[in-house]
């Protein structure tokens, strides 16, 4: 699993790890059942503080994306997200709010935005976690 | 716990051994260079008989010995500072006292070692020419010649050389300690050497004041220095001796006392102080 930390980023390190793992799962790079490197391994690789990596893993576990099995390791779950639909909608909508603001600023219409969104989803769909 | 105390002592001994070994490896070139130069000089002078054995001894255990002392004293601490390895050394679990003391010990040992080997070389050179009578030195020294000593040096040149060697080496070692401690503050070897030269000349001038007083020969300090050579050689660079020379200029019996006082003041006391003190003063003095 390849994760890249952006130096001098305004995004906290744990957030970067979370986002990248999420993206990899969504795009199919990481499939359900895949084993993630251990906290120690990933921490050494990046390099980053083990607690930071742990925080990222725990957040993803809480959101249902990962599953930590004692002694075995951390795996991508094959069950749908444990979060309620409303929560999931809320998380996505906050990102979309930013996109909407940009679109208005760049004078991009709602239809054009829809097209772009569909393109992105199609790009991810082939191997990724699709709608249920 | 007795175990801990013993363990602690063993650890300090290991540390000491490590420090001394490192000093030897690092500074042994000084020893070899010094030994070769001084031995060669003394042996050469005695064999070629350019000067009398007494004068050769005075030269070697006097001015040349002084240069050697500066060479040994100015090097160890200041070269370490200049190379910046001083910070690396001091950051280890050693006190600055131990570091200074180890360098001092190695310096003294090398100094004494060089003089011993030089003396042996000198003796060999003398024997290779046969032990012979010295020219009548009383002519050379004129009325200032210390009578008994002249007889001694002419009848037993080897023994007189050895006497010079012992007394001279002790005297040089006495100058080594304060010079070393003073120069330990220097930041590089060149500055330390320069400082050593200045300090040595200053003390020599001070000595000559005392001698000149004692001899009442007025302004001709160099002649005074040369004619007083045997005494100078024995008490060279002893800051106390000018006083004694003023008090009792022609009396040789104060010599042993002076030597003992020298050894106590310039070797034993500084050692004791550095070893027993809380080393705070050493830290302040040496810094870094």
């Amino acid at each position, binding site marked *: 699993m390849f994760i890249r930390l952006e130096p001098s980023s305004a995004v906290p*390190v744990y957030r970067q790890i979370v986002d990248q793992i999420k993206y990899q799962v969504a795009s199919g790079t990481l499939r359900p059942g895949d084993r993630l490197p251990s906290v120690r391994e990933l921490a050494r690789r990046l390099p980053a503080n083990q607690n930071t990596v742990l925080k990222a893993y725990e957040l993803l576990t809480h959101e249902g994306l990962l599953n930590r099995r004692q002694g075995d390791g951390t795996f991508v779950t094959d069950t749908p997200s444990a979060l309620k639909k409303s929560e999931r909608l809320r998380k996505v909508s906050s990102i979309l709010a930013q996109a909407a603001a940009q679109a208005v600023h760049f004078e991009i219409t709602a239809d054009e935005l829809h097209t772009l969104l569909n393109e992105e989803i199609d790009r991810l769909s082939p191997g990724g976690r699709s709608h249920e | 716990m007795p175990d801990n105390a013993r363990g602690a002592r063993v650890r300090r001994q290991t*540390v000491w051994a490590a420090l001394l070994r490192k000093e030897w490896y690092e500074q042994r070139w000084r020893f070899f260079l010094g030994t070769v130069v001084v031995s060669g000089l003394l042996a050469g002078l005695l064999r070629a008989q350019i000067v009398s054995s007494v004068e050769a001894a005075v030269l070697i255990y006097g001015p040349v010995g002084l240069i050697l002392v500066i060479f040994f004293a100015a090097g160890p601490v200041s070269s370490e500072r200049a190379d910046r390895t001083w910070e690396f050394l001091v950051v*280890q679990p*050693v006190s600055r006292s131990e570091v200074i003391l180890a360098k001092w010990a190695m310096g003294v040992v090398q100094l004494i070692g060089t003089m011993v080997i030089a003396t042996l070389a000198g003796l060999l050179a003398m024997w290779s020419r046969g032990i012979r009578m010295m020219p009548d030195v009383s002519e050379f020294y004129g009325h200032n010649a210390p009578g008994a000593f002249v007889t001694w040096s002419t009848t037993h040149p080897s023994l007189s050389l050895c006497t010079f060697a012992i007394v001279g080496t002790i005297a040089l070692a006495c100058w080594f300690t304060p010079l070393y401690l003073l120069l330990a503050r220097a930041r590089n070897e060149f500055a330390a050497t320069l400082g050593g030269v200045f300090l040595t000349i200053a003390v020599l001038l001070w000595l000559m004041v005392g001698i000149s007083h004692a001899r009442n020969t007025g302004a001709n300090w160099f002649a005074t220095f040369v004619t007083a050579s045997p005494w100078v050689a024995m008490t060279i660079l002893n800051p106390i001796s000018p006083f004694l020379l003023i008090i009792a200029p022609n009396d040789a019996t104060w010599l042993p006392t002076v030597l003992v006082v020298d050894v106590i003041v310039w070797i034993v006391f500084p050692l004791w102080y550095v070893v027993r003190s809380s080393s705070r003063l050493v830290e302040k003095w040496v810094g870094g």
Partner: protein
Amino acid sequence: MNDSRVAIHVENLRKHFGQRQVLRGVSLDVMAGSICGFLGLNGAGKTTLIRILLGLSRADAGQCSVGGIDPSVDALGVRARIGYMAENQTMYGWMRVGQLIEWVSRFYPSWDRALAASLRDQMRLDADEKVGALSKGQTSRLALLLALAHRPGIVILDDPTLGLDPIARRDLLRDVIGQLQDRGATVFFSSHLLYEIEPICDRIAILHEGRIIKCEAVDELRENVKRIVLKPADAARAPDLPGVLDFQARDGQWSLTVEGVESVRPALTSISRGGLTVMDLNLDEIFEAYVIGRREVPHA
């Protein structure tokens, strides 16, 4: 404080050099097993503080303890139990790597030869090579080896990546995580490369003008310190704003870096034409705001 969870405890340290007061009451606690980054401008006193912790220098006032030992009382005890790596340390160039390791091992009762040998392999250092012939990266790896081989519980690193190429820097940081955090050692780490040490640290301490002005977990720092950009209404008078670290005004816009957005949000919203833009900052910007930020908010 005798809490055994505190590895390094510093209380009100003061130190002056001649006329200059370098440390003006530094207080800090580094928890056992944590990695604490130590930031400050050049000449802020970072090295002075570290030297006091090592017992190489004596504070004028205040106290500190490292691993439970007071360095002003037992400096050798402190140095025997902690690992230290300085910037640009010059080691004996004439010794060979193996010799140097052997020599240094004599000073440390807890030296682990097997660990030293394995570290030497890992760091790809040749035992027969002269220390003077090593590259900068190899030298710093060797220095790190010497700091780690006696298994210290606390490691102090003073700008260890100075002068290293990016690959060597990364290797060193990997070793810090891999060798030290793994064992639960405490790391106290001063550096100028904020973007590099931020991912490594649990907490950040900022030393400025002789005092620790901030000592906080990295994520909390990022949460608390944000930049607010707004376009104030004409002739707006700046209200009383607590926690402003830096204020900039340009082309009719205000940019405030604040500690605690919520405490100023209402006041700023009331004077803003349009809304507020709240931006996240990286550690460099946060650090800048703390040490060179302009605190004064002009009132009209």
